[in-house]
């Protein structure tokens, strides 16, 4: 008995502690809502009272008054695109924040001509310390920019084929598309101003397209008027704000967390819960019985 007790207890202990650490240690992955580090969305999530959306099957059936934020770093399935189109046309608001991901698939499916250029935009003059952190100081007079004088982006891209009337924000005329990643303007590289944010009406819903998802991360959230800008956009979402976590890049920890979530979900089903209660009671009674047997023969 004694020979296998220690390894068993040790193994169970390691498993329990690992599970606790995985459960409670926040994900350091980009754009994760629980990530409190510079690249996470913890501050935004807390202040804007957003809810995570792990599966698009859980999209609200009455989307009016809700807003879905998606940062599409993983491709969409046909079913997801169909659900999204239904969500928008039924009155849900959608914010697509992308730079180098799969945003164009989404925009194209929704019938928008606008698309992400997918090329890095640098601004050597209007920036925060470096051209790759461009400041946006040309803003249209729309409700989304009420009280906003500047925005700060982080390794942003630009938008293309956006009708002038739909543009919310432009980069400065000093900005350029650094196609060859030389960090400086070279002959042949397009110069600004470029649209970086736009809004569209689709059915009963509104779509906001922003060429940089990083403006939501903790280290960018309070820079310039990023917070005000996003909150202005989210102002029309009294029924809830959802952040699509199913298309974010995943780390090993995120995958482990997902497994734990599944296990927890499984453990909270009636059958398993009953079984667990049964095991606890059986073990207790067995121990008592054994103790009694040892003492009184």
């Amino acid at each position, binding site marked *: 008995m004694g020979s296998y007790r220690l390894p068993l207890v040790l193994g169970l202990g390691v498993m329990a502690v690992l599970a606790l650490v995985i459960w409670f240690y926040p994900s350091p992955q980009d754009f994760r809502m629980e990530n409190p580090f510079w690249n996470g969305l913890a501050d935004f999530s807390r202040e804007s009272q957003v809810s995570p959306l792990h599966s698009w099957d859980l999209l609200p059936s009455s989307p009016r008054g809700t807003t879905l934020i998606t940062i599409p770093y993983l491709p969409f399935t046909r079913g997801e695109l169909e659900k999204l189109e239904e969500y928008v046309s039924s009155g849900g608001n959608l914010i697509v924040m992308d730079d180098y991901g799969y945003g164009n698939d989404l925009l194209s499916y929704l019938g928008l001509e606008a698309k992400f250029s997918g090329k890095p935009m640098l601004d050597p003059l209007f920036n925060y310390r470096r051209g790759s952190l461009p400041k946006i100081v040309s803003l249209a007079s729309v409700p989304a920019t009420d009280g906003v004088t500047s925005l*700060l982006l982080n390794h942003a891209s630009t938008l293309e084929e956006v009708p002038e009337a739909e543009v919310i924000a432009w980069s400065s005329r000093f900005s350029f598309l650094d196609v060859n990643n030389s960090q400086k303007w070279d002959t042949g590289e397009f110069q600004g101003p470029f649209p970086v944010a736009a809004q569209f009406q689709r059915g009963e819903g509104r779509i906001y397209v922003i060429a940089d998802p990083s403006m939501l991360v903790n280290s960018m959230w309070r820079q310039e008027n990023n917070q005000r800008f996003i909150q202005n956009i989210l102002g029309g979402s009294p029924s809830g704000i959802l952040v699509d976590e199913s298309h974010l890049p995943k*780390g090993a920890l995120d995958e482990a967390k997902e497994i734990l979530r599944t296990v927890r979900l499984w453990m909270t089903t009636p059958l398993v819960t009953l079984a667990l209660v049964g095991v606890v009671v059986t073990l207790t009674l067995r121990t008592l019985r054994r103790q009694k047997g040892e003492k009184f023969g």
Partner: protein
Amino acid sequence: MILRELVSKAQKWGIVLGLVVLLGSLIPAASLRAQRFGPPHENPALVRSEVNPIALLQFYNDALSLLSSLSYEDVSQMLDKVKHVDMPGDLRFIVDTFSSLIGELNADFDALEKILAEASALISEVQLEEARQKLEEAEGLVARSETLLGDISNSSAAFLNYPLLNLLGLPEGSPLSQARQTFQQLLAKLEQLQGDFFALYQSLETKTVVLSAGESPGLTLELSRPQVWVGETLTVQGRLYSPDEGGGISGEEIEVLVEGTSFPMMTDADGVYEGEVDIPYSYMPTVTLQAFYRGMENIFLPASSPEAKVRVLFFPTELILEPGIDEAWAGDSLIAQGNLISPVEGKGLSGREIEVVIGEKTFTTATREDGSYQVRVEIPYSDVPGITVQAFYRGMRDVYQPVASLPVDLILHSYQTRLEVTVPQEAYPGTIARLEGKVTSVESGEPLEGRKVQAFLDNILLSAATTDSSGGFIIEATLDPGVAVGEHLLTVVVEPQRFYLGTSEEKKWRVVKLVPQVQVPSLAFVALSREVQVKGKVSSSLGPARGAQVTLKLKGITGTGQTSEDGEFAISLYFSVGLFLAGTQDLKVEVKASEPWLLSQEDEHSILVLDVLTIGLASAALLSLGGVLYARRRVKPKIRVESLQSFPQPRKPVGKGWWQSRELKGEDARGRVLRVYLEVARMVEELTRLAFLPSMTLREFCRESTPALKGKGEDFSLLTDLTEEALYSPRPTGEEEISRAEVLANRMGELWKERL
């Protein structure tokens, strides 16, 4: 002893726990290492500042270029954005100073351009005093801009000498070198622009001086005829000539004004002008004409001719109106007739349009061949005792003068209408409001059937109805869902009808929204599926609230749903396993009504939540704990029990050699001594109710139990010593030790008997 053992165990498990925690803490690090390639962004807090000197110079080159092209608004907007450019503090100071100076110069140039333009306009209108005031303002701005340019020159030197912008060994054709050159060229252009403004100021100043010393030329106006028919053209002529020499001024425009209408003409080589003017159909006996000359810049001041009057000819007319009656009933009609004649010619005027006006109504007809006319006129509804009828001939832009008949006063009779209306005190947006009332005659009190009644909310028609035989009416009006909450003006109007005047009644009507009432149960069960289903109902005094969005919040868990046609909802909240659910909880209910007459509502209810799993788990844990405690109490009583009667009977017979029944095969002397001891120890456990714990040594158990053994404590102590000797002494155990142990055991057995 127990404490020591616990410490020892804690040390052992502490090491285990430490190892586990160490392994666990490696997970996040492993995860970070295992992280895949992520989105390209960086932590702004860790980024080092980089200033791009070429972009900064280009920015100012743009601003200066715009200023050179007098785009003041654009310059202002650009300079406003410079605050967003990130740069070191010392450069920021230079840049801010430079921007401020450029901004001031921009504002001065803007003001200077406007003032000079105004001065120029005033000079062209020969308002020389006002022009002089503007030029004084301009003089101050010109001087200020000159000073500013000096400051800008000094500031730009500091700007260009900043290390980032003035790299040593800068190649001639490099972008930075080119930007510096452009910058300096644009600064020079600004100085040139300031010079241009100064030159313009000077030229305007000179003009003012010249004009101040000038004189007006002479201008005459002559008419070809002294009298003319109304609407005809009249030839006029005159001459513009130099005041000093009397010579004609050629090629200048003269405007002849006839009752506000201007007729332009040009002077010929002798300064003579000639042309035709139209005499307006004003049917005035005379018309005044006057010629004007606007002046020539730098040469002649404006001039005007003396006024000339021409007599206008036309035929006077006369309009007769005969209504035929001198009393009328409201809503009735009468035949108005009469004649339009030209007394001078002694004939009636045919085909002329006549308007007969009664009250605010106008009826139109045309005259016959002999100038007579006839028209049916409806008597308007009015509660005044008399009404006036009058005919008008408005004229046809010919020689016959427009005319009005003499007014004819008629006595007006009518009946009064009484309106009684009942409206609900409050109305709700989007609902049907029911207005009831009755229409009767004031004079007779009889009900009036077939009267049209209309309801207006803030002067917008809501709905209408017609009175029945009893004079009653019901208006059912649906209020606009978007109508604002608050006090509104409801007007109920009864239309006039043959001899009966109309009437109306105004009422203040409050439009309100109702607060939905939310009913939720006071008890909820959390099933094993971790689901709490909360059923409830949302209603108001108007009935159930349909399609309302209901949001429930219980312990941070949110669920939403919609109410059915009956206003009922059933919302499931899913909880993870926890121990917090059983008990009274605050349930927050938010209702967003879809019906326009309902307000949104937030409410808190206290409900008793019973969690089957939590209660089950807690019960299981309590039962287990109870079981363990009970078991421990049985084997390890800590309290001395007074009455031995309550203890169970010994399971073994007591007597000499009572331990022998447990003799084992192959048992040696040591084993026998030990067995005797164990049996006695067991008996001592039973007698003293003290447990011989596995962690105890024989001596410790002896020390614990001796006080309770009274006179036999010594025997048990001796037996303990004997057993320890047998166990631990190198000396072999023999028969002597066995018999000593048995003797001691027998004596201990007597104790058992005594206790019984």
